[in-house]
């Protein structure tokens, strides 16, 4: 599988504080890569390093097979569209005037700019001043600016921030269309629900570290659901297991987190040995959100 973005040991420190640590990202070409993590987990810093707007303290970034650094950035950026932090746009100018600035800077043909505007469905609002745009319209104009260069890679930092549900769905639908058109999209969010149905690959960042990278199915498989034990004396059973496993009472059941199959068998043997009748043992159903919460310590979602 070819990777349009690959980082090795990517690290960024500010003084002694490491914001991003040893990141080995692999973004497959042609996918929608959901880059998830709680606020402050280092997503924006990572994206800025991918664009060489922030220089890594150590490690390497390769984009489209070439190293990304100050020397190469100008050439590589010609193929990368991006929307970092708040959506750009000069408020005193109209959408059309803003697009013309981008067109002139990048030396783009008129038709290409027009196509980008139509892709985000902004062609009917182009003659309004940006100061009169809603947040959703500003986001779409920002994406049109990023798309105008016909990028092979699109990097979007929290593009759904502050949008209403209709706006979020509109962005999701746009990302799907872009992926269908062959653009690799890397999109960050602190809300799993916003992008998990759009993303074909997920990377989860927590405390500056990449704690998961893979498909949705791999993410679910990587988790260990809680074990629920039903028995004759739930309170005594919980007292027996609590110190070693961190179990807790959940109604008439004892909920035990993080047990693999062998540890589950040992727990059941311990209870039976203590004379507690065990009526049932089952694994709790886990949603993707539960897994994400577990991995990030509840900071996201």
């Amino acid at each position, binding site marked *: 599988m070819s990777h349009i973005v690959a980082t090795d040991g990517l690290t960024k420190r500010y003084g002694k504080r490491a914001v991003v640590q040893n990141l080995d990202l692999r973004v497959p070409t042609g996918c929608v890569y959901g880059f998830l993590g709680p606020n402050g987990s280092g997503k924006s810093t990572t994206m800025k390093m991918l664009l060489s707007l922030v220089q890594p303290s150590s490690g390497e970034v390769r984009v489209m097979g070439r190293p990304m650094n100050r020397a190469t950035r100008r050439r590589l950026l010609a193929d990368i569209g991006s929307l970092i932090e708040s959506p750009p746009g000069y408020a*005193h100018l109209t959408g059309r005037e803003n697009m013309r600035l981008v067109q002139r800077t990048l030396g783009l043909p008129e038709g290409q700019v027009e196509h980008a505007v139509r892709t985000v469905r902004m062609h009917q609002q182009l003659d309004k001043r940006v100061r009169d745009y809603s947040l959703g319209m500003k986001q779409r104009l920002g994406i049109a600016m990023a798309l105008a260069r016909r990028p092979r890679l699109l990097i979007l930092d929290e593009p759904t921030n502050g949008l209403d549900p209709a706006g979020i769905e509109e962005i999701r639908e746009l990302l799907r269309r872009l992926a269908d058109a062959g653009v690799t999209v890397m999109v960050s969010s602190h809300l799993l629900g916003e992008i998990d149905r759009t993303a074909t690959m997920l990377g989860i960042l927590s405390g500056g570290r990449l704690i998961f990278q893979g498909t949705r199915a791999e993410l679910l498989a990587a988790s260990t659901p809680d074990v629920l034990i039903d028995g004759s004396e739930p309170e005594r059973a919980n007292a027996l297991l609590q110190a070693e496993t961190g179990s807790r009472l959940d109604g008439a059941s004892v909920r035990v987190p993080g047990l693999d199959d062998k540890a589950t068998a040992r727990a059941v043997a311990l209870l039976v040995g203590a004379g507690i009748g065990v009526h049932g043992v089952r694994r709790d159903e886990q949603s993707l959100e539960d897994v994400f919460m577990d991995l990030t310590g509840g900071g996201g979602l």
Partner: protein
Amino acid sequence: MSAHAVANEFAKMRRLRNGLIAAAMVAAVAGLSLLATVTSPAFAAPGGRVWAVPLAAMSFAVPLASPPLLAVLASRQVDIEHQGGGWLLNQTSGIAPGGLCRAKFAALGLIVAAATVLESGLVLGAGLLLGIAAPVPAGLWLGFTGCVLVANLVLLAVHLLLAALIDNQLVGLGVGLLGTVVAVFAAGLPPALTHTTPWGYYALAAAAGYQGERLVAFTPAYPSTAALGVLAAVSFVLITALFDRRES
């Protein structure tokens, strides 16, 4: 710095009223100069219709009107980048922050240069209309205009950098107003002190002035002004090169 970047700066000026601000600078300098000329006792005295009177008037009007209006011009042109996410937008399009500042200087510099030449020409024209029959001291007039232009461009650069560093237009305007006070009183300061701030160079550019009630012709401080221009140009290039390496 590319021609596209400079062209974009002109395009961004739309609705910013920069032309109006530059026109206000021209009108203020020309108007104050004319007023100071016609109300000057020296001008009313027999044989007083000499070019030194409008030159002295302009040497008084320029430091009074230029600094705050240059501050407004620069801060408006930079503030749009802070408000519109323009620094990042341009950076991801290949124009680093320092390059953007240089493009802004080139675009605004052309406007300021045109305004400076125009205000000087208007005062010259007014002198002719007021009946000054003596031959125009072309060299002195050009030299004075050139020195004012250097001081104006240096201050424009200072305000552009200040506005790029501090995301608050009031700071730039405050410094511009403070600069006006320094510029106006610089004529009375010892020359060593006058050289220490860019606003002091308006006083060093003066081609005529009053000592008590006596009208005196001066020679503008050409070497000092040239040195300021070179130092400022080198500093501007170095500082904007540092901006290019600044992380977002």
